[in-house]
């Protein structure tokens, strides 16, 4: 297997109602990533694009539509798709392009333009449910999350105030992110989070990530190609993904076993025995406040039910000395959530943390290895990538 290196990354400003088309957003991100890597588009052998439902942009065959914005004209182009987990899956897709020995370089672009769905993307989320059994109920994503959140809270007896702490932490971290969406990060108190409008009890407005447009891109290269860039290259050490059954009603929602399976696959590939000691910084997917804790447990970085307790102790804070900083970027709650682009944003944050380029967001403890994770479909898929120096 070829070793795969990350050479550069690009990220657009996250915003709602971006004036740019999806193609333009993809172009900006791709251009930035190529500039950081010091490459031209002609140096790229293959292009991978990820984006969540076509219905957001209102474009059928969205991959085809975005391809020229991603720089894929007259190149092998592939769009992979695992719903909300697509962002992190993009780098996995790019990884196997290179690890297989087929290509030397690969550009991975993630784009999402959610605001074009009117009046609100939650309407589109109705179309992800089963046509016969669930869709007629008029359900959306908030509804399913409130079920999962209640189950998680009742099994481990977690108070709502503890879950709100995730939003407090991430929205504060997001203040230092130059790409953060206007009005999303901020200094909030637990009371403000808990007392914001109830969307679907117990989910409140400030525990939900916003509707965002944005794009992210990353340049991958083979060992031979990356050697030219010297010692300071960041490598992909492990990848993992896993899809659970579509019948979500038949599962116990308190624990994301699909995330655990995906994490175990990635740990095995990276040769990690004890993730709690060997992972130094983590970006778990946090579209909803409780999700970050849920995923930290799935990633085996905390025992079942232990993540909220560690949160209260500041174990996941950015300036922790002996904990594991979690979502130092601000995550989806603090930066914004253009679904696929948000997943790749998390990978890029790990890359910048390892490079020491995260600026004000740089974590205090020394980092040699970091993990990014995304999640999607009907609370069903886990995608995990481990980067290391």
């Amino acid at each position, binding site marked *: 297997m070829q070793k795969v290196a990350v050479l550069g990354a690009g990220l657009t400003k996250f915003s709602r109602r971006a004036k740019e088309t999806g193609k333009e957003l993809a172009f900006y991100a791709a251009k930035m990533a190529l500039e950081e890597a010091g490459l031209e588009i002609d140096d790229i052998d293959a292009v991978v694009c990820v984006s969540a439902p076509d219905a957001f942009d209102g474009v059928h065959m969205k991959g085809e539509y975005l*391809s020229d914005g991603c720089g894929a004209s*007259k190149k*092998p182009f592939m769009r*992979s798709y695992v719903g909300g987990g697509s962002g992190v899956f993009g780098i996995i897709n790019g990884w196997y392009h290179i*690890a297989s020995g087929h290509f030397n370089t690969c550009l991975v672009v993630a784009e999402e333009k959610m605001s074009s769905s009117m009046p609100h993307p939650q309407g589109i989320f109705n179309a992800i449910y089963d046509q016969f059994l669930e869709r007629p109920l008029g359900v959306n994503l908030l509804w399913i999350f409130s079920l999962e959140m209640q189950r998680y809270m009742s099994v481990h007896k977690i108070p709502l105030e503890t879950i709100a702490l995730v939003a407090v932490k991430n929205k504060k971290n997001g203040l230092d992110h130059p790409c953060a969406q206007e009005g999303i990060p901020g200094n909030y108190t637990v009371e403000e989070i808990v007392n914001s409008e109830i969307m679907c009890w117990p989910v409140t407005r400030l525990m939900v990530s916003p509707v965002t447009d944005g794009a992210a891109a990353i340049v991958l290269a083979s060992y031979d190609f990356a050697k030219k860039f010297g010692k300071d290259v960041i490598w992909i050490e492990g990848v993992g993904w896993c899809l659970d059954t*579509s019948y979500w009603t038949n599962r116990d929602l308190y624990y994301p076993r699909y995330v655990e399976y995906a994490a175990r696959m990635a740990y095995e590939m990276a040769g990690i025995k004890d993730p709690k000691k060997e992972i130094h910084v983590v970006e778990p997917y946090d579209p909803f406040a409780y999700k970050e804790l849920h995923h930290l447990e799935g990633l085996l970085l905390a025992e079942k039910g232990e993540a909220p307790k560690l949160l209260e102790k500041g174990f996941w804070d950015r300036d922790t000395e002996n904990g594991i900083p979690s979502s130092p970027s601000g995550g989806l709650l603090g930066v914004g959530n253009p679904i696929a682009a948000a997943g790749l944003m998390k990978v890029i944050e790990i890359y910048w943390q390892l490079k020491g380029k995260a600026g004000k967001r740089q974590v205090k403890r020394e980092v040699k290895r970091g993990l990014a994770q995304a999640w999607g479909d009907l609370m069903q*898929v886990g995608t995990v990538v481990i980067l290391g120096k």
Partner: protein
Amino acid sequence: MKERVAIIGIGYTQLKPISPEVSFREMIYEAAVKAYNDAGIEPKDVDTFVAISEDYYEGTAIFDEYVPDQIGAVLKPVHTITQDAITALAACVMQIKTGIFKIAVLEGHSKASNIVYPSHIDAFALDPILVRPLGFNPIFLAGLEMQRFLIETGNTEYHTSLVVLKNKRNALKNPIAAYPGEISIDDVLSSNPVSLPLKELDISKKADGAFVIVLAKESIAKKLVDKPVYIEGIGWLQETPNIERRDFVNAIYLQGAANMAYREAGIKNPLEIDFAEIDDTFSYKELQHIEALGIARFGESGIMLEEGYFDFDGAIPINVSGGSLGCGNLHDANSLRGIVEAVLQLRNEAGERQIENAEIGLVASWRGIPTASGGVVILSNRE
């Protein structure tokens, strides 16, 4: 030499114009069970799964959700490729070549009969700002391209009609085909105009069906089955999504994809292949693709077709399965049907339509209007 990847199992359903008696899940389940039996494995032996789907065709946002159960992939690495089967096959091949995965499964299906207004769906694939507001039916693009192709290459409507005749006749020998038939040139030429010179019978009709194939690396394939079919070369390419900037004469996407596949397979002259399954969503597309693949020189595909080169008993039989014109248009699963046909031919299991001594087969795909992307895969049974 690097270890090759082999196809060790295939499963497929009957193709039908409509299929109200089964859901997409039941269709896929039938194909999956057949494929696993064919390969002599259980789903638990599979390391990674890839599925093909497009949300708008399925009528579901994030169709990836509904993939795992019916193929036995629950709690396994599964992902969707929203492209044609050859690109998705490349995803399987690359995963196996990383060395992490030993056995991979590829699933593709069509439930086109559920789509009430297919042209409305296709219109959503047009650029939403510059092109879609013009409000035309996307099939118009095929008529436009056909016109340009015929004028530039000197091929005629007689030749495109011959493609329809040949493929529908070939389909008579294919038990799974949905639209076989014996028709005349006049039938095609006098069929209803759609977007002239494109006529009703030049267009492949939609069909329902499901396909599943099992892949493994060479060393494992040899242990599991007697007749593995090897993937010698694979290529895929995007030309441009902008219809304004596209080459309406040559299939640039297929030229590029073919070059990539020929290089990997070590094929110097395209005439080394024994047969081909080539996209024929529209009759003229088969001729355009034959020229793009280098099987015929520019402008000569029509004459060669007329002389019988591409017939069942010709030098390079093309679409002996009946192609999309004879079997039905399955959207992105079209090329998976082609791959299954190639596997049957290379295993010497194609029954009445068996090509003698077939050793190398080629499958070429196009994603349909309004795209300009496609793929090529070269398969062989050579040890």
